[in-house]
């Protein structure tokens, strides 16, 4: 347990030793702030109409939900870049030997690495959450919905990171790991589209689509089925990563 946290802390610090994490944080924040601003503008324009409507969407519906939705899409592009080097680079630089010769189980190595990368994602999600919180200066927020959005995005990113980690275990080179992670995430994202075709409706594909579960939680419907989807997803890819590392020693 302890050693797992040692690896996690090292991984987290290492991310910030290269310009990659800083650059991604800065660009992400800039793009999302811009999108957030547009949503807030939208709200101020719509406000007179909203005042006359019954059951009108609230400030939270108009600003927070799209912000977290956009963040999900952008993180789909960014996560593979942050996870691609996790195991892959250790293997290329021959530093994996250090971890394999230390008194550590492969599960500790994988989970440690995973937790380290989650640290960065927690930071990203935290920074994104600061934006809607700034609205409190002049308005009120539906905190239930905000928490639901926060939960949805956190689960989504954790799932992204687990696939990224697995691809990094499999691939021999970080670019391939990034491409593999991006490809599989994108397929999982768009599975829902084909499920939407009226005559080819498939319950299975709809269930597998990561987008649908994300949107369910985002809308405030916190359902065990959706949460277990993400937890199963994460455990599956962590398990596969551990197996993959085991196999390397055989």
């Amino acid at each position: 347990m302890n050693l797992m946290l040692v690896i996690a802390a090292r991984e987290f610090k290492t991310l910030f030793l290269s310009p990659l994490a800083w650059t991604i944080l800065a660009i992400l924040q800039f793009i999302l702030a811009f999108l957030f601003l547009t949503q807030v503008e939208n709200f101020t324009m719509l406000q007179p109409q909203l005042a006359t409507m019954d059951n009108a969407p609230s400030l939270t519906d108009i600003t927070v939900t799209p912000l977290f939705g956009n963040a999900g899409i952008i993180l789909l592009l960014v996560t593979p870049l942050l996870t691609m080097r996790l195991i892959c680079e250790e293997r290329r630089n021959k530093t994996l030997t250090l971890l394999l010769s230390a008194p550590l189980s492969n599960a500790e190595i994988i989970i440690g690495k995973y937790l380290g990368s989650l640290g960065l994602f927690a930071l990203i999600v935290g920074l994104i959450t600061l934006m809607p919180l700034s609205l409190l200066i002049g308005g009120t927020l539906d905190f239930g919905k905000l928490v639901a959005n926060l939960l949805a995005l956190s689960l989504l990113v954790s799932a992204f990171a687990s696939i990224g980690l697995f691809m990094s275990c499999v691939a021999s080179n970080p670019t391939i790991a990034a491409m593999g992670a991006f490809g599989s995430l994108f397929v999982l994202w768009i599975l829902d589209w084909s499920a939407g075709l009226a005559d080819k409706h498939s319950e299975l594909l709809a269930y597998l689509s990561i987008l649908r579960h994300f949107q369910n939680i985002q809308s405030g419907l916190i359902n065990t089925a959706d949460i277990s989807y993400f937890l199963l997803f994460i455990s599956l890819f962590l398990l596969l990563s551990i197996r993959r590392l085991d196999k390397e020693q055989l």
Partner: protein
Amino acid sequence: MTTLIKAEQLTRYYGKHCAVNQLSFSLAKGQILGFLGANGAGKTTTLQMLCGNLAPTSGEIQVNGFDMLKQAKLAKRSLGYVPDTPPLYKELSVNEFLRYCAQLHGVPKADIPAAVKLAETRCGLTDVADRLIANLSKGYQQRIGIAQAIVHNPDVIILDEPTVGLDPLQIIEIRNLIRELGRNHGVIFSTHILSEVQELCTDVLIIRQGACVLNARIDALPAEKSLEAIFIELMQAGDL
């Protein structure tokens, strides 16, 4: 003498290719075992198996009485391994890196600064302790590789060609270090330099195509023959 490493009938296949074949040997405290063999004889594979980086196809390894397969964590606690390419995080400083290695090997938090300092002193790294590993020369990087393996004061130290690519002065320094380590630890190191073995080691193990062809004490070897002559004789014997 306490037996630190006991390898029995070690065999390793890569697909159909047999890299190590029924290799058995042991190492006791105070022994320095020189591990010789031509390129591709299976030296690195054997060392990787000893360190738990690679599982043997069959056979058994015991380190300090712990089985490498069944009690890997306990067995690895007593091991320090310097692979042929030293495993270094180049973006860290020497101090940071060694602290991390000590943590990974479960050195208690309070003992870490002293352990790091001792390893740095023994490997002559005190002057560069705060510099980034990426900016140091190959000789220094090799020494950090060794420091990394001794920071947790293991009983057994395994070095894979530790003197490759170093200048003559550095080679002498590393040899002195190995000799010093050999007093209180068990040391196994592989090399191509026969004079190195003759000078440093108490024991020699020669393998050819993964199988043991000589396992003897250096002082038990016939005095009239040089190790080089013996080595060449053994290598040629197989070609006929």
